[in-house]
């Protein structure tokens, strides 16, 4: 981890209809840092994550990415999204494309790589996650764990500066959780800046540099994994952890 701040939010708020989901969220994500976000369902974790790459538009506050405020009129959001990979709970792989095409679509379309470069890169990535033999299959032939690993390398193919994970293992059968977590672990170990919303407390403890506890639209508490999980300071955190640990 370095001292460079990669993503910063300042007083981020977001409402859906009358419901205020984010009530002023301030965070800093440093380059190379791995942050885990935990908290009760409905607490705004997904909304917060989706505000970072502007899949949700914040009502007020700033999202600052690599020194640029990106949530304002006139910003080319697509350009910034290219540098922020996102992995969803439900994989969202493209069913009408082969495994390899899933990976090469964005880099080629956005002219980040030539077709040949993108293909070579896709094969390299597939090799690393053990799906090389599936390169010409369509996603319907893959298991949930394989689909999620595909979704991860699809995002990696764009060579992003940060990876955002929204409960990447929540939709998986238990026996497939491990294979996905180990891909994420390898990424973190390789120095990728990572924000991961997760219910896997053991994983959060093991791989993250810092854990944010989020509830009712605010970051209630944040600390190093051992501190937060073993010595939570806030009653809200204690209550939550007593239920899940």
């Amino acid at each position, binding site marked *: 981890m370095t001292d460079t701040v990669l993503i910063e939010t300042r007083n981020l708020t977001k409402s859906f209809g009358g419901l205020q989901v984010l009530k002023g969220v301030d965070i800093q994500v440093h380059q190379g840092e791995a942050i885990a976000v935990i908290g009760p369902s409905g607490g705004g974790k997904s909304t917060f994550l989706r505000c970072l*790459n502007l*899949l949700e538009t914040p009502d007020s506050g700033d999202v600052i990415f690599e020194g640029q405020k990106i949530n304002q009129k006139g910003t080319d959001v*697509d*350009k*910034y*999204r*290219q*540098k*922020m*990979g*996102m992995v*969803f709970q*439900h994989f*969202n*792989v*493209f*069913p*009408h494309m082969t495994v390899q095409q899933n990976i090469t*679509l*964005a880099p080629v*379309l*956005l002219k980040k790589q030539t077709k040949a470069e993108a293909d070579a890169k896709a094969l390299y990535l597939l090799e690393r996650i053990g799906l090389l033999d599936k390169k010409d299959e369509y996603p*319907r032939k893959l298991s949930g764990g394989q689909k999620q690993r595909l*979704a991860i390398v*699809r*995002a990696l193919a*764009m060579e992003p500066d940060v990876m955002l994970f929204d409960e990447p293992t929540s939709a998986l059968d238990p026996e497939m959780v491990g294979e996905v977590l180990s891909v994420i672990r390898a990424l973190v170990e390789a120095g990728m800046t990572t924000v991961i919303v997760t219910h896997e407390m053991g994983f959060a403890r093991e791989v993250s540099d810092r854990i944010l506890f989020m509830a009712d639209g605010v970051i209630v508490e944040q600390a190093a994994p051992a501190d937060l999980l073993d010595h939570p300071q806030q009653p809200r955190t204690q209550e939550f952890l007593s239920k899940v640990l």
Partner: protein
Amino acid sequence: MTFTTVFQNIIKLLAKYWDVFLVKGVSVTLALSAITVVFGAVLGALLALMRRSHLGVIRFLVTAFVEFIRGTPMLLQLYVGYFIVPLLFPALEIGTFASISVALVINSGAYVSEIIRSGIQAVDIGQTEAARSLGLTKGMTMRKVVLPQAVKNILPALGNEFVTIIKETSLASTFFVGDLMTSYLIVKGATYLAFESLIIVGAIYFVLTFSLSKLVGAFERRLKQSD
């Protein structure tokens, strides 16, 4: 009127007027339907596109237009087309067939735009989010991710629209455009055998729509398989 006489009359009518039914009537009905479905699809695509415009005025106008077309009887629209289209373009000396075609196309366009819209909406929003999260623009996402999946919903519905149109073009016989239903009017006028003519025309309509439905169904199954 016994069953035997009806049967004999049908044979007689077919022998004498088979070309009126099968050649003229069927070809005009199919031509009218094909024109309607092809241009209706183009118009429908255009309308669907305009309904996604970032200009609220355009969205409102198109939506209002589509709702209006869907909320008024086709026969009324055909009358409007019959009277208005020639008035709008007097220099072109537009005939009845063309005027009626225009009305049919507009009607079909409204329905097709709904087909396209719901076909697009049926694609999981997660697909769009994944594409946008990779940095794809709205347009790229539509072309490369959403539409290729929406087509699987849209094409079978368009096929069914074709079947519906074949039946609906019968309304155009009100204006004697020469379609299958007009054949009925002609033959009935010449022979006074209304019931027998109806049976023949009904059978032909059924064969057309039934075989087409089956074709659409088979096509739909193949699309599903390649999913």
